[in-house]
């Protein structure tokens, strides 16, 4: 009976290295499989973008010429249970008979809700001191651009806005 110790050791070694590889591969596969639902759940609302829709927000006759008013409407929301949180406000201004303009309420600096003040004809931001003129252009403070605008149209005497994403100001403003 000859002892084949040396080749036995070698065999054992290659067996162990095979088993290690097996362990790591299976763990890798398990990780990847489990990561898929984890990631897709986080991405779900992000990937399910709804198309913008036109919303009737007011009657054209509600506005005097030169008047700016807050209107509220529902976003193109993804979920039925969104309720109040999917409501949004915008400022609509009537420049003349047929020209309306709609501003986002989000300050173009960091998104805080600007307030319209009728007397001085200015939008004031409560966060970092930004201000905008009635035409939406920058008046003062940290914003680097004017207020964002919504597409707007008059249809059968009604003012309609097209819902938009919350405007995000980029680094190259």
């Amino acid at each position: 009976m000859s002892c084949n110790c040396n080749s036995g050791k070698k065999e054992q070694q290659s067996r162990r290295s095979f088993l290690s590889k097996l362990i790591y591969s299976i763990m890798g596969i398990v990780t990847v499989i489990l990561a898929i639902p984890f990631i897709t759940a986080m991405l779900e609302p992000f990937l399910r973008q709804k198309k913008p829709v036109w919303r009737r927000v007011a009657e054209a006759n509600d506005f005097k010429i030169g008047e700016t008013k807050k209107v509220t409407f529902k976003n193109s929301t993804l979920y039925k249970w969104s309720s109040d949180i999917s409501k949004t406000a915008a400022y609509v201004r009537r420049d003349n008979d047929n020209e309306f303009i709609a501003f986002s309420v989000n300050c173009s600096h960091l998104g805080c809700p600007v307030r319209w003040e009728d007397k001085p004809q200015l939008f004031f931001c409560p966060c970092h001191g930004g201000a905008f003129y009635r035409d939406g252009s920058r008046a003062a403070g940290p914003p680097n651009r004017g207020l964002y605008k919504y597409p707007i149209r008059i249809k059968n005497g009604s003012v309609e806005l097209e819902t938009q994403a919350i405007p995000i100001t980029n680094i190259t403003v």
Partner: protein
Amino acid sequence: MKILRRIGKWLNDRGKFADIVKPLKTHLVPPGTKWNYIWGSGVLFCFTVQVITGIALSFMYQPSVNAAYESLQHIENEAFLGSFIRGLHNWGASGMVVLLGVHMARVYLNAAYKYPREMSWISGVFLLGITVTMAFTGQLLRWDGNGVWTAILGAEQMGRIPVIGDYIAYFFLGGKTMGGQTLNRFFSMHVFLLPGLLSAIIGYHIFLVFKNGISEPPKQGRLVNPETYRKWYDKLLKKKGVPFFPDVIWRDVVFTLVVLLILIALAFLVGAPKLTKPPDPTILEVEPKPDWYFKWLYAIFATMNRKLEPYFLFFGPLIGGIVLFSIPFLSKGGERHPIKRPWAIAGIIFVIVTLGSLTYIGMIAPWVPEFDAEPVSAYIALPAENEKQVKKGVELFNTMGCIYCHKIGKKGGLRGPDLTKVEKRLTKDQMIIRITNGAENMPAYGGSLSSEELDDLISFLAAGKQQK
């Protein structure tokens, strides 16, 4: 008695309970690890408080856009000890941020991050980042008017990342607009994802403390030499080491009690921030304000040069992160004592002074228009020959928004200069130029004031005004 002892013996033999504490009893630490070594365990204790109060809150809180606000009011006003639990969770967060800052400063000043403890520092930086994110998402879960707009503010900041900014911002909000999904994302992050990550990294952080040993108190002239350090450290422990339990850990336990008492006092006496208006994005009369630990950032956003700011928003955190991560690799060995590392002391003082002064300005927030400013009354102006005009000017000052940013007497905002004695600084012509054209932080009123109104306003501003 005998039976009890037998049960105890059995539990220890099979349950190995004594072995759980045994590593603490046999773990040796260098001599002199005293009150300067309590900060990390203080952070750990605050985290424990957060976990316990957080679970308690989650039993009562409804993580739904529709019900969260009401459930918060229930917790605050009706639930037994609810307001106290909210207060403790709020102050536990503050304690965690403060003690983490002290812990980090201590480690930095004593250069405990040097060889072989670089990974303790690196994992600590991750813990800092996650803790700050926890603080931010926690502020959001307070789903009132403030919470809603804080979410948008957070998204806007991420929007400054070049190229992919929009994607990151909308991913953060879970869509391009607010909706039923928004609050739940923050809830899942704040309650599951981030605490899970925190626990794992805290475990690793503590594991490293045991594996690499607590850093010995620094001594001037005793340099860290990566080649010989581990041998030297082992010898030190063998010769002079003391058991961690109870010689050293008793201070941590005493400190734990002190921290708990302070947190309880704050929770009872001050409580958590009051709930503001309901989370309805169509309510625009809100004044979103960050919790105190973000006031310094708030001040930067408001006071920084606006052309540089978009870049700062991206490069600031990036450079800050790179600096923090590279600290242990910039000086691997050498001196550890702060006296021999004056730049370390200077750095800490710089950070404290910067954050401190920015936080102070952020608390005052002079840039916020004083929307509720009490109107200046006509009597404040001395009767002049043109009294009627002056009165009209006062009216304009009150209604045109001047008072939001300018003070006269004791009334008005802080953004612009105090105008009580403006007639002594500026001529009428200079006032007209300024009001008509505005300035960097003042709107030009040329388009909204008639020349008659401008005259009225100037006659008020140019008149001698007296406080009454």
